[in-house]
């Protein structure tokens, strides 16, 4: 079973994502509401995939992404972002994010992107 860490500062968003992923048979091993926790949990849990919101209360998602990649270059990261953040998303993709999901997202879309990302080597 694939293990996923959810990074999002909104409890509502985390709950929705967690339900979608858990229902689909993924194991949501952790949830981080800010960048600091996200970095710590990624190191500690070594998930198969991280879903990363780009706007966080302490650092930007971009900083978190760079932090993760510096320690674990192979970590799979999928960006979750609302519309209007295209600049950041583009920069994230250049910095090693595998894919991005645009909020509001549909369940099918999330699962499609996540399963695709997990397949990639």
């Amino acid at each position, binding site marked *: *079973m694939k293990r996923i860490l959810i990074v999002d500062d909104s409890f*509502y968003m985390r709950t929705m994502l967690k339900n979608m992923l858990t229902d689909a048979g993924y194991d*949501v091993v952790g949830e981080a509401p800010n960048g600091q926790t996200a970095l710590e949990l990624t190191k500690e849990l070594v998930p198969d995939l991280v879903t990363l919101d780009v706007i966080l209360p302490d650092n930007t998602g971009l900083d978190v992404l760079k932090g993760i990649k510096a320690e674990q270059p192979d970590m799979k990261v999928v960006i979750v972002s*609302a519309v209007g953040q295209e600049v950041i998303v583009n920069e994230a993709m250049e910095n090693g994010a595998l894919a991005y999901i645009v909020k509001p997202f549909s369940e099918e879309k999330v699962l499609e992107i996540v399963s695709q990302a997990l397949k990639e080597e």
Partner: protein
Amino acid sequence: MKSREQEYKEIFIAEALEYFDALNRHISDLEKRPQDDQLLAEIFRLLHNLKANAKAIGYLRISDVSHKLETAFSLIRNRELQFSDEVVTVLFEGVDLLGELIHNIDNENYGEPDPVLLRNLDIIVDNLSDSTIELAKVRRYNTSKNLSLSELVYIQIKKLDHLLNLVGELVIDRDRIVSISRELENDELKVVSSHLNRITEDLQYSIMDARLVSIGSLFNKFPRIVRDIATAEKKEVDLTLAGHDIQIDRNILQIITDSLLHLVRNAITHGIEKPEQRIKKGKPATGKLSLVARNDRENVQIQLTDDGRGIDLSQVRKAIVDRNLLSNAAVEHLPDTEALSYLFEPGFSLAKEVTEFSGRGVGLDVVKNAVDSIGGRIRVDSKKGVGTTFTLQLPTSIAVKGALLFEVDEIFYAIPLIHTEQVVAMEVSELHEVGGVLVADVLGETITVVYLHELLNVKEQEINFGDKTKLKGLVQNIIIVSYNNRKLGLIVDKLYRQQDIVVKPLNKPLDTIDLYGGVTLLGSGSVCLVLDVPAITRYFISKRQTIAAE
């Protein structure tokens, strides 16, 4: 009952109100420190989340207003818009509007937001720093601002337990008063007692409702547990979960947590084979485990299925004989489902034969006790080589359950509706004496029928289940109960109404008496015995076997 939608909505509102409070705080600070980038970033983040969440859940007005405010603040952040007094006023009003929209999510009568305010927001967002723009005065529709606290409170479960106990006591007294008022024929008392009846019921269901949680709160722990056990056992297991949204009393969930964990652990450790063994048997290397919850009438059913090696019935039968639970002859004729039910016998689990071959035994009596203690049912179905399914039938709420009241030999009894299939009235001529028991045709199905007086009150040596002449009266009231997929008709002396009862468990030393699941106090103050259907069925079967063996 709370659906997942309802839960999402509650979370959304609680979080949105938090954001709203924080926005108000930050925006006031910003007035004092308009250049504070950190504050601006925080306000931007809050609005951004509110926009995204509102859009996801479908509150488009909230997401629209958040979006406009978010844009305004991003302009301020980029120094493209001055944080002037005029702009501040509009932004404050915008935030207020957000608060109003959040508070009125459920208010169908809430009208449209003030168009002037929306236009002002548009002007700020679109016209950039054109100093000539006219910001129209907004009519303040809400001069006295309400202070509001979060709509959700956390509560300790023991406080809810206490409430439930109190309401249980109240229900008993309520029944008492209702029955007294019936006797007294006092109109005023009747009115008061019928009102008391209604509000007590309402209170009871409200408290029961407050205790309900989604089964998902337990299920979500299993992916990790299954993974860990499977890794330790060097097995490959694919877990499927379904029915997260099913609601159940928090304490019932608590009580069966260990049992479920136990069953899951058993299924992986003893049920599912190692990948190489599975391949040899022509099964996929990865074992399948599924945990499914569903609503079943008033109850909740939880089913755990594995596709492992299954239980070897011949070993179970052998163990039953070895443990002197039944004679060789009796075991031979024991239906498979009955034989499997012996797995729940205390001590049976220790039978070495069973653990070696099927490994199912360990502690199943403990699981059964837990399920019994909350008035549930547990059943196991298994096919050697194919897999095993455990089915737990659980009441949705602990304290109060629907039951059928009746009388046998001047003793009051109740049977929880979870075990009753139907009630039929039949003439004695429709009952037939077959093979030492009575049978009846109920809607095309042949059902064994037993006179409860015979089962409960005739000297054990003199029991005769097949003698119609012992029945009193022409028409017999029969309660059809079911246990382990087998139906049994119970003939009672007098049938009373269906009623919600508060079951009090029997204290030691009587708690070990299987036949009674507890007692309940009737409105008259008298004690009514709650019959345990599984135990009654087992008792009937064992008596019948004893008689047949003689």
